[in-house]
């Protein structure tokens, strides 16, 4: 697949939870080798969209494609080969508490049935990945012994620790809960990994600094639909009122009404 070809495609995807419609007829093409950032207020369905890409959620309506192959109608077992090409960095990191840092990082490789990666190679690759994220020497620590930023970096190391390397990395709020300096480390790391490992990235965030720093393309989700799509600098300068308010960080009038009611 060439750089710029659509590696992930969502066609008219809708999703509702009970009466709440989260995604409403969404179309999205994620270009290969680029970093696509999706921003939006909390609870607007950014994470839901991300979970559709890897088949953790199924759309009520619409289709999801990976490398031109429809995946939303595949069984869990049939999704496995596709999932082994996509990494997911979860908002809460989702590190396995019962394992050491090294075991966490090596876990995706150990579980790859078809990969047949040798133990020695697995160990070497997980050490290399930990070095890439600046955590060499942390192999024997447990997730409970790490700070928030360190956990995030272990999650990033686990995301890239695959043989062969993943084609896509999905980041769910990669800087949530981190102070600005640690968030900056994570942003630089995402960019660095993208250059180093040359993967397609889809980043979901509500942090505008992350969005502009790591994104080649920026989309804004509002009311279940995309209301802005373009280069980060274009979206940052957009005149649309919701985009404007989001970029400036000013509250919506209807939110303020509920405060004074």
């Amino acid at each position, binding site marked *: 697949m060439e750089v710029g070809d659509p590696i992930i495609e969502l066609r008219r995807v809708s999703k509702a939870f009970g009466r709440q419609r989260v995604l409403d007829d969404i179309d999205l093409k994620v270009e290969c080798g680029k970093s696509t950032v999706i921003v939006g207020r909390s609870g607007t369905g950014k994470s839901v969209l991300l979970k559709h890409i890897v088949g953790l959620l199924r759309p009520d309506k619409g289709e999801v494609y990976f490398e031109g192959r429809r995946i939303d109608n595949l069984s869990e077992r049939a*999704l496995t080969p596709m*999932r*082994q090409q996509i990494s997911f960095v979860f908002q809460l990191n989702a*590190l396995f508490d019962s394992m050491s840092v090294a075991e966490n990082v090596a876990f995706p490789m150990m579980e790859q049935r078809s990969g047949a990666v040798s133990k020695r190679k697995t160990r070497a690759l997980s050490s290399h990945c930990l070095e890439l994220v600046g955590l060499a020497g942390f192999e024997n620590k447990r997730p409970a012994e790490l700070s928030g930023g360190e956990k995030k970096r272990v999650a990033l190391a686990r995301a890239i620790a695959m043989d062969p390397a993943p084609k896509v990395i999905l980041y769910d709020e990669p800087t949530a809960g981190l102070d600005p300096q640690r968030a900056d480390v994570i942003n630089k790391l995402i960019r660095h990994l993208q250059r180093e490992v040359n993967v397609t990235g889809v980043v979901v965030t509500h942090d505008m600094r992350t969005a502009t720093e790591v994104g080649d393309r920026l989309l804004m989700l509002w009311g279940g639909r995309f209301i802005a799509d373009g280069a980060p600098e274009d979206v940052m300068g957009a005149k649309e009122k919701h985009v404007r308010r989001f970029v400036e960080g000013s509250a919506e009038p209807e939110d303020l009404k509920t405060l004074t009611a």
Partner: protein
Amino acid sequence: MARTSTLERSIGNFGAWLLGLPEQFGRFCLFSASAISYAPLELATRRGWTHLIPQAFAIGTQSVPVIMLTGAFVGMVLVAQGWGQFETAGLSDRLGVIVNISVASELGPVLAGVMLAGRVGGALTAELGTMNVTEQLLALRSMGCNPVRHLATPRFLACVLLAPILTLYADLLGAFGAWAVYAGYYSGESEPYWFYTRQAVEYWDLGAGLVKAFFFGGTIGLISCYKGFHCKSGAEGVGRACTDAFVISFIMILVLDFFLNLVINGLYEGLYGPRPLLF
């Protein structure tokens, strides 16, 4: 819009809960079928054993002291309860018969099951529930790894395989505890005690208890894992799942015990005829 009263809301909630029961049961059956279907594969592979052994240690080895203590005191209490009646009737040397049959076929497996549900079931639900709310189960799925096979099947297998062994410990300590009180506290004669016990207690009773324990272990494992996998978010969700897992396991142990008794007794009578009188 008309406002709904508390009573109406309660009736509505009860109705929704009632309607949701068949769906819950269906989900539980699918989950159980999935966990059980991976069991032969897990037992046949080295990777499966690497998942199973730590669970066997946590579920089995670490439960031994508490199960032994429970078994011992059950035997001791039965002797303390029965001594007065049996002695008055001049049947004190037959006390071991009733105590050991009760322990081997009924109280040993049931109480070991209840202890297992409390100690292990709660811990399993809490562990898996926490993994669920911290997205670890989703992470496993996103890596193409089946969480049921990876997490539920080893725990289910450990419960199934180790519940009979733990019951055996409870039986042994129950028998020993009963004899210790009989001979040590009430100064009963040991020789006739064991003579009549050997005459009345059959391997069948011991086997019946172990078969029950096998089913109780499987039930506890499946219910605890299911509740952990399907708990609601937050600390309250995990806490509620743990309580539900224990309560449902406890009820299911008693329900299963009744039906297994019917089957086992029917089988005994079919094979050997009616059971001889104990005295």
